[in-house]
Each structure stands twice: as C-alpha cells, then as structure tokens.
C-alpha cells in the first residue's frame, strides 16, 4: 500500500511539472507585458498555443530524416525525466535516487545533443547557425553547471537533491561559496533557457537567435512537443534554485498528504516570485552580442571554480 502511495506521489510530481510548465511561461509573459504597460495575453495562452499546434498538420522538409521526426520525443522524454527528478513539493520521492544532480545535468545535455542534431538535419543555414551557437554556449555553460554542482555537493556532502535539500534545511548558514554558486546558477539558467540577455524568446527572426533557429523547420505537433520541453526546462531550473537555495516548505520523505499540499502551495509561490524576478530582470536589460555570451558564461564558470576552490581550502567558507 505504502509503495502504491509512493508511486502515485512520484506520478503526481511528473504530472505537476508537465502541467505547471506552460503556466509559468504564460505568467512570465503576462508580468513582462504588465511591466511594459501592455495588457498581454492571458496566462493560459501557452496551453491554447500548444493545443493549436497539436491540431495542425506537420509540414516536413523533403529531406528530413527519421532523426528529425523522433528527436522531439527524445528531447521531451529526457527533459521530462530530468524535471521530474528535481524535488518540487517534496523530497525523497520513490525514484529520486535513480539519478543525482550530475545525472540531471547530463540528461539536459542529452536533450540538447538531439536538439542540436535536429537543427542540422534539414541542411539549412539557419539550423546550422542555431546548433553551432548552442554548442558554443553549452561548452561553457555545462562545465559551469558541473562546478556549481561541485560547490553544492561539497557543502552538503552529497550529489543527491533529496539529501542536499535536507542538509540545507538543517544547516541554514550564509556562505561565500553558496552565494557564488547562486549567481553562477542564475547565469547558467538564463543562458540555458535562452532568456534575455543571451537570447530573446519573444523574437523569431533575429540574426543572433539560437534556440528559435534550431527549431525553425519544426511545425505542428513536433513543435508543440519541443516548446513544451523548453517550458519544462525553464521550470526545472526554477525548481533547482528553489530546492537548493530556498528549500523551505518541502515535504520530507514519508510525509502525509497535508504536508505535501503545503509543499505544493509553497512551490507555486516560489515559482511566482521567481517568475516575477525573471520578468523584471528581462525588461531591465538589453540583449548582448553573441560573442559576448562566452564572457558572461565564463563568469559563471569562474564563480563555480572559485566556490569549489574555497571549499577545497576550507570547509567553512
């Protein structure tokens, strides 16, 4: 019985991240519009967009291969699994131990690998430009992420997110390295999700575009699946920041239904605050040139490395 309950809770987490991801996108768009004194579309608009895309027929380029057609589902699968492994409302879920933070990072790497390949499949210059730039960003963002994982793992003595959250709750303290890791993680999250100032999610035809260029040839249900995966990736980074740096409200392992509901409410509030801050940040900066991005990401890498070095030198920094 207990096992069935745990199974259901794990399934609830999978459905929760899937269901909340478009809402988060809609919320950020709404806040951005309001801050710019526009009315903006309803926060449920992303759901309608997804449904519309699913009902449209797919127009496939003549020379698209099987890889192009299966990549959306591979990307979606890997991203969904990664997003369900990051604690949202509670820790210690049934399958949380099957992959740690390094594996979650690598799962996102798998999704990106196939997205970059899909961009090159039709053989257009736009797809190539997107894949090439995504690869350059990833080649700095991924080591930066690993270094941030190192900082967190060295502080908490574990790479398991459940243990990390529990340790952070038990030992609330201000550390230099933790601050460095937070800044680094935010930079990586902005770059990985193609937000301003790295990429502009609102535009479609701009010479510095990255993510939109890779998916330019996609249409219909394929595009819907990729958009949903991108939304889940954004949600994943929000959950990650929430789970590591503000773990309050997370239901512990074996908690009852009430604690979990409270955890879910806390999670939604964290998402709302995070979404508001992201929207505020996005409207207050301008997009940077594409060859400035390595410097921006290099800062995250250096912060992560500095944090790791501090922890190697002294456990208490």
């Amino acid at each position, binding site marked *: 019985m207990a096992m069935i309950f745990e199974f259901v809770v794990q399934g609830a987490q999978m459905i929760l991240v899937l269901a909340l991801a478009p809402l988060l996108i809609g919320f950020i768009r709404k806040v951005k519009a309001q801050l710019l004194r526009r009315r903006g579309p309803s926060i449920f608009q992303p759901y309608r967009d997804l*449904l519309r895309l699913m009902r449209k027929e797919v127009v496939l380029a003549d020379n698209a291969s099987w890889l192009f057609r299966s990549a959306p589902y591979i990307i979606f699968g890997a991203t969904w699994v990664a997003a369900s492994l990051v604690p949202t409302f509670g820790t210690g879920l049934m399958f949380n131990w099957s992959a740690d933070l390094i594996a979650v990072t690598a799962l996102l790497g798998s999704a990106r690998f196939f997205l970059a390949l899909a961009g090159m499949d039709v053989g257009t210059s736009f797809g190539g430009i997107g894949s090439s730039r995504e690869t350059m960003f990833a080649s700095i963002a991924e080591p930066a992420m690993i270094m941030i994982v190192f900082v967190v793992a060295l502080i908490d003595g574990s790479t398991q997110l459940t243990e990390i959250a529990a340790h952070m709750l038990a030992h609330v303290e201000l550390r230099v390295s933790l601050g460095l890791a937070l800044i680094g993680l935010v930079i990586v999250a902005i770059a990985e999700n193609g937000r301003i100032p790295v990429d502009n999610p609102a535009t479609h035809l701009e010479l510095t575009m990255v993510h939109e260029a890779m998916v330019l040839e996609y249409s219909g249900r394929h595009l819907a699946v990729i958009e949903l995966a991108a939304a889940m990736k954004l949600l994943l980074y929000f959950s990650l920041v929430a789970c590591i740096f503000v773990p309050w409200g997370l239901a512990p392992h074996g908690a009852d239904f009430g604690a979990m509901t409270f955890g879910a409410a806390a999670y939604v509030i964290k998402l709302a605050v995070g979404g508001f801050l992201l929207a505020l940040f996005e409207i207050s900066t301008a997009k940077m040139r594409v060859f400035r991005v390595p410097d921006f990401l290099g800062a995250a890498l250096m912060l992560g490395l500095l944090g790791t070095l501090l922890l190697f030198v002294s456990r208490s920094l």
Partner: protein
Amino acid sequence: MTPLTAALWSIGALLGVGGLAAALARGGDASRFIYCLCGVLCLILFGAAVVPRTAVALTATLPLGLPWIGAHFRLDVLSAFFLAVVNLGGAIASLYAIGYGAHEKHPSRILPFFPAFLAGMNLVLLADDAFSFLVAWEFMSLSSCALVLAHHHDAENRRAGFIYLIMASFGTLALLMAFGLLAGSVGGYSFSAIREATLGEYWKPGLALALTLLGAGSKAGLVPLHIWLPLAHPAAPSHVSALMSGVMTKVAVYGFVRVAFDLLGPPAFWWSMPLLTIGAITTVLGILSATIQSDLKKLLAYSTIENVGIIFVALGLALAFKANGMALPAALAFTAALLHVFNHSLFKSLLFFGAGAVLNATGERDIERLGGLIHSMPRTAFLFLGACVAISALPPLNGFVSEWLIFQAVLLSPSLPQWSLKLLVPAAGVALALSAALCAGCFVRAFGVAFLGRPRSITAKNARETDLWSLAAMSGLLALCLLAGLLPSYLIDTISPAARAFVGGHVPTQGDIPWMSIVPIAESRSSYNGLLVFIFILFSAFLSAWIVRLLGTHALRRGPAWDCGYPDPSPVTQYTGSSFAEPIRRALGHVAFVARDHLDMPPPGDTRPARFGVEIRDRVWDYVYSPIQMSVEFGADQLNKTHFLTIQGYLTLVFIALVSLLLVVAIWP
C-alpha cells in the same frame, strides 16, 4: 590446462597465423580465412581472461629470450582485465575486417601484420619480466607501424609512419631506462624481483616514474608526446585504426599502471601531480583539436587523446588517495579509470568502424565533402549516432557512467591533506567538465556534418550501405555500450579485485544493490541507475508520442524546407564543419592553437571571387618539436664535419675518446 597456458598457446597461434598469412596473402582471397582465425583466437584469449579463477596469479616460464633467464609470464587480475579489453576489441575488429578487408587492394601488406599486432599487445599484458615486456612492447610498436605504412604510396602516410617510428623508439628508450633504474645495479629483471627491491633514494622512484610516464605516455598519446597519434591512427586501415586507438592506447595505460601501482612500491603523494596536470591539459587540448578537424578519422584520433587524458586524471587521483592511505576513494578513482578504459575501447572502435564504412562507401574522410549519409547509409548512421552519444558522456549510455564515477572521486578529494593537491584537483575537475561538454559539441558537429543535412558531393549522394559483417560488428559494439551503460554494476564488481590488489581497497559490491543501481560510496552520498533512467526516458517519449497522437492530428505533409522563406537548393549554403566549429574556435581555441584568418576581399568593381582561408598552427609543434628538430639538424651539420678529417685527426679523436673513457672508469665510484 590453465588459462595462462591457453593464452600463451593462442598467442603462439596468432604468430603462426601471421606467418600463414604471409604465405597465403599473395595467392588470392585469403583475408576472410585469416580474419576468422584471428577472431577465434581472440575469443579464446578473451575466454582465458574472463573464466573465473582464484585470486592467485598464474605464472609460467618459457625457455625463450636471454639464456638462463627465460621469459616469464604472469596472469593476474590486472592483466586479465586488460586482456579481456584487448581481445574483445581484437575479436570484434576481426569480425569487422571480414567484411571491410574485402575492399583492400593490397591485402598482403596488412594480413601478416594484423595477427602479429594482436599477439604483440597480448604479450605485453602477460610479460612478467622487463626483458620480455620491452621486446613485446617493441614488437607491438613495429607491427603497428607496418600497418600504418600499409598504404605507403600516400606521402602523408609515409610521414605519419616515420614520425610514429621516431616517437615509438623514444618511448621504448624511456621505458628501457625506467626498467634499468627499477632493476637497480644487481639487475633483477623479473617483475617479482623488482617488486621486492626498494628504490631507496628519493629521486630514484621519481625519475623512474617520469621515464615511465614518458614511455607509456608517448604510446598513449599524452600531450606533448601526442603528435604522432593523430597522424598514424588515421593512416592505418580502419579496423587497425580502431585497434590502435581503442586498444593499443589501453596497453600503454596498462604499462603505466603496472609500473606506477605495482612495481614502484608505495607511492608518494607528489607522484600524482604530474599525472593530474598532464592529464588535464591532454583532455582539453585533445578535444579542442578534435573540434576543429575536418578529417573524420583525425577527429577520432584527437578524441582518443582526450579520453586518455581522462584516464590519466583518474589514475592520478587514485595515486593521490593511495599515497594518503585513503583506500575507498583510491579504489573509486581506480575503478573509474579502468571502467573508462573499457568503455572507451568499445565506443572508439565503433566510431572508427563507422568512419571506415563511410570511407568505403564514399572514398571520403573529409566531413566537408560528406552530408546526408543518414538517408543512404541508415544503419551505419544509427550505429555511429549511438557511439557519438556514448562518447559524449550522455546518459543512459556507458560513457556517462565512468565520467560520473570520476566526478564522484573528485568530490571526495577535499579531504586530501596536501595543499598542492587541494588546488590541483579542482583545476583537473574543471578540465574534465570542460572536455565533457566540448566532446558533446565535437560529436554533434561530426555526426551533423557528415550524416545529416544534404550531400555535399556526388560520392556522398551515391553512397551505399556497408556490408553485413561490418554492420554485425558495429551492432555488437553498440549493444555492449548500451549494456555497460545500463548495468554497470557487474563491470564495477569485475574490476573490484584489481582495485583491491593495486590500491588496497574496493568500492562496495554493486551486484546485490536493489534495482541494480550503482552506489559508489553510500546511498546518502550519490547513486545512479542507468537502467531506470533509460526506462523512464523510453516511457516518457512513447507516452508523449501517444498523447500527441490522441490529442492532435496524424496529418503530415512533405514540402520544401522553410529556411525563413528563402530555401537555397545548393548544398553549399549549409553550415560546414569549419563554420560550425568557428564560434568554439573563437571562444576557446586560442589556448590550444594559433588560428589566423586570411580574408581576400576584392575591391568594388573587381570581379574575382573573395577568398577566405584559415591557417591553424599547433602550439606544441611550434614550441616543443620545432626547436628540437632545429637543434638536431644543427648538431648533425656540425658533426658532418667530422666526416672529412685527415687520418691524424681521426687518430686524435680515438685517443681522446680512449682517455676520457678511462677517466670515467677511474672516477666512477
């Protein structure tokens, strides 16, 4: 018959097959027969390595080699592991060659040396005295050099063979001196005598380690001794390239492990520092160089250099932990290193096989002239893609497992007491993370440019799928990659006795952990389950596909590419390999090489085309090898003068030489 005698008989049989091939090869179609024999013998050797046996090492002495000494052979847990790696690679390469070798124009230049090369590698692993080790090592080098020179009509291959020969001789010389130091003045050249002897003085073990690092490192491809590798590995026929890259570099790793972890005795902590430094530099330089290559086989060779660097970083960590008496972390790092040895031998062989299939189908190694092969060679494309995912350390395939274990070992290293290591290990960690990310980019580029998009040449357009033997070999390797990624616990348990014997500890037994996940230290610290992750991804992907079908339409229409409304039918408008690598080259490339862009833009009104070229120079060539070459040439010029002396001059020279030698003898303590 013990496994060791079976192995020795098989090695003898391999040498016999080499002789048979030399006799048969001129006659006609002997290649299938020869490769079949090689494959069977490799399987027997593989069996000898993996059959369960007691922990006691088997030894044998043959009356060969130096009189009164003989040749000593020994099969212990470490040589058994490497024997399994080598012969698994050898067996699958033979299977591949049954199909691939049929395209060879001059089989007589390959067939006799292929079994000899396999025998040489096996002998290195079994040798138990310095003399047979060095003879086997040199035999392995020379037979592979003959294979590199198989297509010697190409001037580039001749140059590759020449440089390989020089570097191999240099490596053997360094190893010779290392064993000379290890054996000491008494001259016990058997490994058991060396193990018991203690190198008392402080500088002696350090010097022996440095010499071994030079000797084994030059064969494995450590920077800056790597320069021969990206020339020689691609020059050989593809199944030999796979053996050289996937397997022979591992024999070099074995040589290093044998000396550093076994013969040299208890390590000092500073031994690990050159390993960590050189390993970290090797990973980053190797993968950066791979990212800009347009020759597919050269790209794979540079990626081998990167992986060798990863293995050496892990070995460095193991040495550091072992020196500080931390048995569990040492075992973790050592296990990770050996697991990466196994994994890399699988996916690198598969990648070279794929490159060979492409080479056969199109006659091209240059990815700038390929493209669209996923349509004409779908099976090869799928298998090559699998290997790309595996080597990029992406879950759920096997490359990720070993990298993950290495990261776990890095995370244990703050408890190392030495300050120098505290600073060095994070730097090596960031190099590993950087190279993992760059590796994914490198293989996106390799696969994307060669297999995806539109064909860039007629030959690429008319390519045909490769033969069934090659496909069988590649499928087998991909299946092994997947298995090793999903169920790594059995592999870790297989390595565990070696870790116990060489670093004095072992990671917890993985086989009986529920759900077959791997838990290297404790569950509260870290755990990973490739099988579950794989099942989850499959489940999510199929569930999403099903729901999409349920909610949406099935309608699908083919049309011209969108490309923002301006699709250009010419394939030259696609991104090329060099344009793909350009951002990475600009952002990170300047650490590895000097790149100069040449742009020739005609003024308005001039009708000649604009030209753009990139000149890339390797810093290692400029700063290390060019000065050496110049000084050798200068010295040779100076010594050349002694060819034209008078008879009195020569007599004086003889006299001076005699007196100085006598002086040395008189002064020597």
